[in-house]
């Protein structure tokens, strides 16, 4: 088989596929983070914990309620979104007028508490979640074997990202959201209940994290630490894409997944820091991020 720089083509494609899957999760999570930052001005450190909650929601639904994989793709985000409503209405809302640091500390605290709670309830070890039957096989592409579930993860997260992008950039509701980001008090003066809109935005975005968690359950194991492992990279993605830029979050998420995959092939020892090297370079050259607007 052909080789590229001494690396077999199949190995390269395999790593690119893995990178694309990681990138899909980066995109789903950083999309929510970017919207929350853009609309609510909150750096949501609890995002990883909500991702973890999504995984556990799917797991608990399966083990105790007998709710299967497909319904849990809806149930888990809804459950996580509801928790998001509570967090926003009870806690976050009081911090909007204060410095970013307060909401960052608050959400960081929420993340630690949720993680601690789930460690206490379920232990630290990962819990397996069975692969849905319909997606247990794979497709032989000729040059490589593509597991069906991995293909589904990519399609599903890209689909959700695309729909979210469309809703925000092309619909009336999205116009309200964009306008409220710029000038919330004027949007309110047009007769729109902005506080409720912000609550729903937060709920939707953490619901996206919950969706990602449920999507990840069969692929990785469900564990209390699954979110905190991911969240740091996702924050790097948001910074690289440009804080608050939706399209930036999606494109950057996917490309960083791919870059990570490539470094695993060519410079395996650097793969853990590849994302952060890119972040340093981007911040040096374009401080407001690749897709960010100067403020």
């Amino acid at each position, binding site marked *: 088989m052909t080789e590229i720089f001494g690396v077999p083509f199949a190995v390269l494609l395999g790593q690119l596929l893995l990178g694309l899957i990681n990138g899909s999760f980066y995109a789903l999570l950083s999309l929510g983070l970017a919207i929350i930052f853009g609309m609510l001005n909150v750096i949501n450190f609890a995002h990883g914990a909500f991702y973890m909650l999504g995984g556990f929601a799917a797991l608990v639904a399966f083990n105790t309620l007998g709710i299967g994989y497909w319904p849990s793709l809806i149930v888990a985000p809804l459950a996580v979104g509801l928790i998001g409503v509570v967090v926003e209405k009870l806690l976050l809302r009081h911090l909007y007028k204060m410095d970013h640091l307060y909401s960052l500390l608050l959400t960081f605290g929420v993340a630690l508490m949720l993680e601690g709670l789930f460690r206490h309830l379920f232990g630290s070890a990962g819990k397996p979640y069975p692969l849905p039957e319909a997606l247990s096989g794979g497709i032989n592409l000729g040059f490589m074997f593509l597991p069906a579930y991995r293909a589904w993860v990519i399609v599903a997260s890209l689909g959700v990202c695309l729909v979210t992008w469309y809703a925000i950039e092309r619909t009336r509701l999205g116009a309200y959201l*964009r306008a409220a980001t710029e*000038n919330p008090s*004027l949007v309110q003066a047009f007769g*729109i209940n902005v506080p409720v809109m912000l609550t729903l935005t937060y709920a939707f975005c953490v619901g996206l994290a919950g969706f990602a968690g449920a999507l990840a359950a069969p692929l990785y194991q469900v564990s209390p630490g699954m979110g905190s492992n991911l969240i740091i990279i996702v924050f790097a993605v948001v910074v690289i894409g440009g804080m608050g830029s939706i399209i930036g979050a999606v494109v950057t998420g996917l490309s960083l997944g791919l870059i990570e995959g490539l470094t695993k092939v060519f410079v395996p020892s650097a793969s853990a820091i590849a994302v952060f090297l890119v972040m340093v370079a981007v911040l040096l050259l374009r401080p407001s991020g690749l897709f960010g607007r100067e403020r």
Partner: protein
Amino acid sequence: MREQQHLLEVSNLNGWYGESHVLHGMTFNVGAGEIVTLLGRNGAGKTTTLRAIMGVVRKRRGAITYKGSDIISLPQHKVPWLGIGYVPEERGIFATLNVLENLMLPPVTQSGGMGIDDIYQLFPNLRGRDQTPGTRLSGGEQQMLAIARILRTGADFILLDEPTEGLAPVIVEEIAASLQVLKQRGLTIVLVEQNLRFAASIADRHYVVEQGVVVDEIANEVLPASMDRLNSYLGV
């Protein structure tokens, strides 16, 4: 003076921005179909008065009644649904929205609003600019857009904050003409202005505001005769 029931009655309105007390007992009224101006120097409290009526300024005391019912206790987002439209100072055109999105943004709160065709007839400059980012328009066009988007909502009572600020005389004339059209359609307008000539060309009555209170009321007919009095207030 009209003695019948006023559309808007503001009495002894006090308002605060945080700790600073800006309105010190504003009292005035506006009848249906009138154009009434609030004149006064910078910082007199004219803009704050409009913001207090809309509920943008939350810390208020006193009474604001619209069509006979109190609106001070209403949640902010309910006020526009009474048919009150707000065209803010600095126009408030959204940079992340294109012209069409800006135009369509405020929800229609009452029937009887202007259709898109009527709006383009009133402001021909806006025609064919749908996809242009809102803040790429010239200052005058942005002002027209800010007025146009409120006309679409069906609001028949409009608070208009310094529509002529920083605009060329030709554009000011265009905006004055458009307000005349609105008046003929029966709309009621409260206008905050610094441009006396513009104010005199369209208004029925003027209130002079100084340090957060109404200090004088002048009917438009006697405005030319009252210029000395007015100039002493405005310090021009």
